[in-house]
């Protein structure tokens, strides 16, 4: 495992290109495009204002930079550095911007969600989508990029419109039986759309591509409902994380619950392996580290080493009681992710913020629990193999795979608190992002 020198980066804006060759990073108002392997700067662009959002086009030829305060989106080309494009929304304002799947249209959401403007880079045409819904996930594209679903709200009712991305033709428009639609997401096979309601109402609806309602699932009434939703990569399972600290798994044949995963504070099942992160006394034993870091001497003085111990079941995890009188309480399943081979599901119960629960989907049982010393900030599965990388806000990156788990200290001088990470599409490297810096981590093929 090798680490690069950290480079500066603001607003956690570090994105790999879809083809995996480049890494785009922002520094205030400058956009730097580096080579993904050598981190050599390939291009440098300057934008008009502080960049709040960047996104690669699907063919990795263009990058859009959105500046919400100014209401401007600037698009840069990698092939022709001289090419420029600026979209000014003016007084309408800008709250969100994204690419269409074909990489030639930009969808801008205006302030107050007045409308979504579809700007085309190929023609002079402009399209408008009226009454978009102001919710967390109002626009979703199918994986093959053919269809787009947009959530709308008219006259206090929720609707979903399905557009064909090739010519922006409205394919279907139907209303949903939700009180207040919270999010929509396509299944990876592009045939089923999951629509779920606000957390005041536990309701998830499944619509077919042609707008028919396939099924409705309601687990319970009155208590706070759905917090997070994830499709499995094969579209076989739909995992719904709710505020009652459970994950309900629906199957794609009957759209009924096949099991629910509980996240209690005490683990009693003897077949579960619990890895607990334990601090070691610093600067004494470096041979206990699995991977000797590059700057062992320097960093070992200022940082504590840690390793994983397997603790015997029953294990009681550290849990927090959320404030009862606040909205959006820190309880329930807030993070949910399937592994790319469909075999594992990683969840985080916000009541127990230090633990990651890994479930074996083939057996529908709890497989592993990783208990960290700090609260989990972010975890992401390797896009190629069942390997999970997570960070807890310190300068260590943790990796788990069915073979075992390892904690690696990032050899960086000074403070480097990793709050986000992002895998490269090949699974060979990872970008570790902190508030101001970014560090690349290169993994060898044989590791873990």
């Amino acid at each position: 495992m090798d680490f690069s020198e950290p480079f500066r980066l603001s607003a956690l804006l570090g994105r790999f290109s879809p083809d995996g060759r480049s890494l785009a990073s922002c520094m205030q108002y400058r956009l730097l495009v580096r080579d993904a392997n050598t981190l050599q700067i390939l291009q440098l662009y300057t934008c008009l204002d502080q960049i709040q959002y960047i996104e690669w086009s699907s063919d990795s030829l263009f990058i859009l930079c959105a500046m919400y305060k100014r209401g401007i989106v600037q698009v840069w080309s990698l092939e022709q550095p001289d090419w420029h494009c600026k979209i000014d929304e003016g007084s309408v304002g800008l709250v969100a911007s994204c690419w269409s799947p074909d990489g030639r249209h930009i969808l801008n959401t205006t302030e107050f969600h007045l409308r979504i403007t579809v700007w085309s880079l190929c023609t002079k045409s402009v399209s408008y989508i009226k009454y978009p819904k102001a919710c967390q996930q109002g626009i979703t594209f199918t994986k093959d990029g053919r269809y787009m679903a947009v959530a709308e709200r008219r006259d206090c009712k929720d609707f979903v419109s399905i557009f064909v991305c090739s010519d922006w033709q409205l394919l279907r428009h139907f209303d949903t039986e939700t009180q207040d639609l919270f999010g929509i997401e396509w299944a990876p096979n592009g045939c089923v759309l999951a629509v779920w309601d606000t957390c005041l109402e536990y309701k998830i609806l499944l619509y077919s591509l042609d707008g028919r309602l396939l099924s409705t699932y309601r687990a319970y009434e009155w208590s706070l409902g759905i917090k997070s939703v994830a499709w499995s990569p094969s579209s076989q399972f739909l995992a719904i994380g709710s505020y009652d600290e459970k994950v309900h798994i629906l199957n794609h044949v009957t759209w009924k619950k096949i099991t629910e995963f509980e996240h209690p504070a005490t683990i009693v099942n003897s077949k579960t392996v619990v890895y607990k992160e334990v601090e070691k006394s610093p600067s004494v034993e470096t041979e206990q580290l699995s991977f000797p870091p590059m700057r062992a001497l320097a960093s070992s003085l200022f940082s504590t080493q840690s390793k994983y111990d397997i603790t015997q079941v029953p294990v009681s995890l550290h849990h927090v009681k959320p404030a009862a009188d606040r909205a959006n309480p820190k309880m329930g399943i807030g993070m949910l992710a399937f592994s790319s081979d469909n075999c594992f599901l990683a969840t985080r119960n916000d009541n127990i913020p230090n633990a990651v629960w890994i479930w074996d989907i083939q057996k529908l049982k709890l497989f592993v629990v990783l208990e960290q010393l700090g609260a989990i900030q972010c975890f992401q599965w390797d896009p190629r193999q069942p390997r999970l990388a997570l960070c807890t806000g310190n300068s260590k990156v943790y990796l788990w795979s069915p073979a075992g788990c390892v904690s690696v200290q990032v050899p960086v001088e000074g403070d480097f608190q990793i709050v986000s990470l992002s895998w490269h599409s090949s699974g060979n490297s990872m970008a570790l992002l902190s508030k101001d810096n970014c560090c690349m981590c290169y993994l060898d093929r044989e590791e873990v």
Partner: protein
Amino acid sequence: MGDWKTITVPVLSSDGKNIFQYTSEKKISSSSMNSQVLHSPLPLSKSTHSIFSAFCTEENIEQSIAYLDRELTTLGFPSIYAESKGKELNLISIINCMNELLVLQHKNLRAQEEVEMQHLKLGSDMDHLQNCYAKLKEQLELSKREIVGLQERDRQLQNKNRNLHQLLKNEKDEVQKLQNIISSRATQYNHDMKRKEREYNKLKERLHQLVMNKKDKKIAMEVLNYVGRADGKRGAWRTDKTEARNEEEMYKVLLSDYEQCQKQLLLENAELKKVLQQMKKEIISLLPPQKQKPKERSEDGPVLSDLEEDIGELNKENMWELSCETVREQLTNSIRKQWRMLKNHVEKLDNQVSRVHSGALNEKDVISREDHELETEKLELEIQQCREMIRTQQQLLQQQLMSPCDDDTTLLLQDCYLLEERERLQEEWRLFREQKKNFEKERRSFTEAAIRLGLERKAFEEDRGAWLKQQFLSMSADYMHSENVTAPSAFSGSSDQDNRLVKSTSQQRRSRCVLSRPVSAEPCQTSQCVTCSSAASKKPAGDSKANQRVGSDKE
């Protein structure tokens, strides 16, 4: 109750009072005896003598005798006077009367004893019953007290139960109330939200109008040059056709997804059906063959026949290709049935095992095992006996064979055996010689036949040679004629010469035809003879030559 009588006896001494006392104290139980019988104590004490003397004294003999006579006659005894109204006493009758009285006395005493015994028994029974009665009364008291206690407890528990029910009801009511409150508040919030949202929408519309009205030139896109489409194609207008195409594509996508799903499900179904059928077969094989037990046949008869039917049907039709409801149900039902049978069987076995372990003897299976052991013992005994028998036989045989030679009988016996064998051998020799002679005769006849055959063949060959020569000559003559003569059938009115020629040719042809038959026949005959002669195996050289000649002629 008996009644008792006081005796009016004229002279009574103080001892006579004893009698009164005795008699007055005795109770007489209801008896069939004379109520007028007097009871007196059994052992006669000294005082009785005085009593006896007190009754009759020298002065009142006649009166006492008369009195006695009167009493006796009233009691049914014969009179003690010799003749009626006489003074002479009949001694015999007196003695008889005395005897009768004694017997009566004995009887009475015995009866008294019995009655006393019974009286004692009854007294003890009475005591016993009184004790029992007292105990039972105590027990009754105790149980009554217990009942009262239990009733009290029951009452208390029922009270508690009622209270708890009431509490539960109260709680439920409260919950229901709270839920109602929540739902009413929720509807209120929704209504308020909707109102606010409408207001907000109005604001948004207004804002939108204002923004659009401003005709802000700044809302524009500045681009250096337009980029080509990602897929390189040119943009197309949106028309109905494109709409239809989009719909079509969408449905295609959906259909392909459904088809894939269905394929997977079919595969899964087929696999599961296979597994089920395998399981079924294995279960059937595990079950014990129950056809041998006639008792159970009545129970399992219908089941067995169902089994066989199922197997037959399912094997016949190759069900897994079809997926109709009835087939599925049949399969699952048959598996359930057999699984139940297997379960019962296993349970039975378990019970048997447990019973065997506990050593109960009254089960037929255990007995059968014992029977089995008995049988094995019996068989072993039999085997032993047989072995002994065999050994004795062997010994006897050995003895016989190894007996000393100077015994005449054994010699004779041996001679007898030898003679028998000799005669048998002689018979066989005779037979053998006869057969040999027969064989010789046959051989001679075969050789003669072969010789004859050879001669005949020679003759035949000579004839054949001559005929062939003739044939050749005739053929050459024919050939010279054939140039002049055309097909005989074409000419109807032919000259005589022609006719003759025709006739001659036809004759020749006919002769040829005639001759040709033997040619074909004779080789057959010769081949037959050849086979015959080869069977006799004489003159092999000549035969082969003949064969060769036949073969060459045929060619």
